[in-house]
């Protein structure tokens, strides 16, 4: 223990902790704050810091690993009385402890900010913590390996670049990291626990291999087998899985019965306000009876990093869904307006609706602006010029106030239905 504490105190990597912590906190807070108050989003937001910290950790780890070669101490260490594996283990473990500290500090800060919502859903946060830990451990291992064999001048930069490219391309697709913590997804506890164990095993094998100078072939084989095991574990497990439907939904029983995930309790007031605007719509607009937040209806699955919607053989029985991207009222309004238009065009055959007639889309835009409470949307889209014009027409009509403000929308939709829909 004394030797381990000595390594911690004397390691140059201590100086890295403050700037890495500042970077992590900046990544956490200098963005939208919608993660505060929702455990899965909190965990995922703090896990994002692991993405950037792991890249610099790989470089720092490579720099630390090459220290003995830099200072020409290989010969002294190999002739020393201490078991070389033990000496290497002290160096590796002290490096890991120091380089994990900024990430754990960021997670602790994120936890503190979401504490008022404790404990329901806190296991979702914990899963994302483990996800970030796995990434950091693997980056340490990669950097340590490169630092041992590459030139001390280029090793750190090569480790930083190679790790960043790996995690950004392969890592995201394999579910090693996630860029957002959707509420309908949950960290796969078993899979992440297994990944953590195998990552620790990989580090142990690497520590033994790098200090076994007289058994290079066995060491190389051991590292390759351990790395292959890690690869198979990552490919064979999912980082996140789809959550099962909660036993109790959080619903606002207004004009439409809008049901949310319980973890989105903080958005209930915004949902209620939108529902009150729905209630002000004239009776000529048919409303869906119920809408679920995306994911509640059990019709999605995860394949790698992609979320796949399972086709329902009976589409008319499907309950329409809505999303709340970062609590956006515009996202909610868009989905509700789309559901209202679908409900009103239920008798129409899709094949009879011409693509170049965008009147229904214009009415949908009218409803969206009305239900969002006016203003400018908080999203950007790359739609066609015709669609942009139709959207503008609907939004301008929605800006009218007074008793006849819905007349344009009612008239346009009724004419559209009479042109293309039977009955």
């Amino acid at each position, binding site marked *: 223990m004394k030797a381990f504490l000595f390594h911690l105190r004397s390691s140059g990597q201590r100086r890295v902790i403050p700037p890495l912590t500042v*970077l992590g906190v900046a990544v956490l807070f200098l*963005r939208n704050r*919608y993660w505060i108050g929702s455990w899965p989003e909190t965990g995922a937001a703090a896990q994002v810091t692991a993405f950037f910290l792991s*890249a*610099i950790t790989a470089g720092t780890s490579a720099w630390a690993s090459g220290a003995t070669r830099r200072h020409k101490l290989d010969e002294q260490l190999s002739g020393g009385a201490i078991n070389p594996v033990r000496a290497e283990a002290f160096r590796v473990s002290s490096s890991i402890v120091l380089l994990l500290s900024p990430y754990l500090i960021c997670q602790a800060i994120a936890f503190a900010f979401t504490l008022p919502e404790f404990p329901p859903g806190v296991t979702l946060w914990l899963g994302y913590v483990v996800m970030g830990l796995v990434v950091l451990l693997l980056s340490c291992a990669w950097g340590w390996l490169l630092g041992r064999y590459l030139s001390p*001048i*280029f090793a750190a930069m090569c480790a930083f670049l190679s790790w960043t490219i790996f995690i*950004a391309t392969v890592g995201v697709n394999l579910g090693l990291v996630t860029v957002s913590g959707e509420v309908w997804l949950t960290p796969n506890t078993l899979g992440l626990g297994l990944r953590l164990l195998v990552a620790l095993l990989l580090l142990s094998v690497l520590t033994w291999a790098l200090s076994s100078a007289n058994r290079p072939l066995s060491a190389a084989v051991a590292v390759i087998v351990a790395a292959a095991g890690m690869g198979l574990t990552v490919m064979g497990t999912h980082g996140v899985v789809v959550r099962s439907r909660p036993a109790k939904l959080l619903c606002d029983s207004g004009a439409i019965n809008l049901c949310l995930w319980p973890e989105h309790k903080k958005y209930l007031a915004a949902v209620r306000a939108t529902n009150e605007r729905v209630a002000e719509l004239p009776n000529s607009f048919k409303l869906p009876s119920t809408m679920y937040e995306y994911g509640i209806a059990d019709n999605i699955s995860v394949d790698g990093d992609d979320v796949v919607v399972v086709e329902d053989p009976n589409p008319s029985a499907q309950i329409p869904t809505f999303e709340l991207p970062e609590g956006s009222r515009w996202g909610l309004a868009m989905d509700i307006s789309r559901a209202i238009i679908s409900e009103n065009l239920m008798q129409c055959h899709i094949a009879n609706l011409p693509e170049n007639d965008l009147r229904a889309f214009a009415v949908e835009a009218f409803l969206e602006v009305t239900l969002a409470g006016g203003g400018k949307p908080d999203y950007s889209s790359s739609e066609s010029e015709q669609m942009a014009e139709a959207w503008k027409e609907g939004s301008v009509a929605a800006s009218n106030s007074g008793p006849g403000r819905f007349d344009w929308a009612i008239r346009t939709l009724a004419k559209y239905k009479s042109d293309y829909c039977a009955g």
Partner: protein
Amino acid sequence: MRTLTLFAKARHWWITLAVVIGLAGLTAWLGTFQATLPSASSQSGSVVPVWRLLAMGVGTLPVLSLHSPLDTLEMTGGERLRSTQTTYLIISAIASSAIYLTIISSAIGSSTTMVIGRSLPGWIGLALLSGRVLGWRLAWVAPAAAACVLIYWGGRGPDIYVWWEFSARPYVDLAALNVSLALLLVGAVAYWITPWRLSILPMRSVLKLLSLGKR
């Protein structure tokens, strides 16, 4: 010339050349691959082409290669060593950039090549700043930190970047060119401030201030 040759040999210039060619090959092969990275402006992340990361590496290499096992001794070197070092740095930076841009131009297109060419002075400047403060071997630190900042906060949507995003804005953008050249200037100033200049400069300022109060 002989001094320069010895200087370059001591720094294993061929390794730098090999790494530049390797990065150029990697850029030509994978450069246009789109990676999904976290972004402050979008919950679903932003799409970043891999060439943006690899260009940072090429800009850092000439400065990294300034390191030598006698770097502490070299800090006390005289004018001849300094001028040789500066000549080596300029030649290696220009040669690395030229070789890299030539190799990648046919693979990733001329407009992207020009964007990378515009960003290289900025990366070199950041590497010089980092190398002067932390040592030439750690010249990658400031470019790495800057890359994290640019990736996370530099984007505002698909192909929309803030004015200081010098590594991704269109090649005709003047603001990005100014930022890149400003970073090179900062790096050049940091390189110019040798340890003895650093110790003398504040003293001169203090002496000047003191002389104002003298009779």
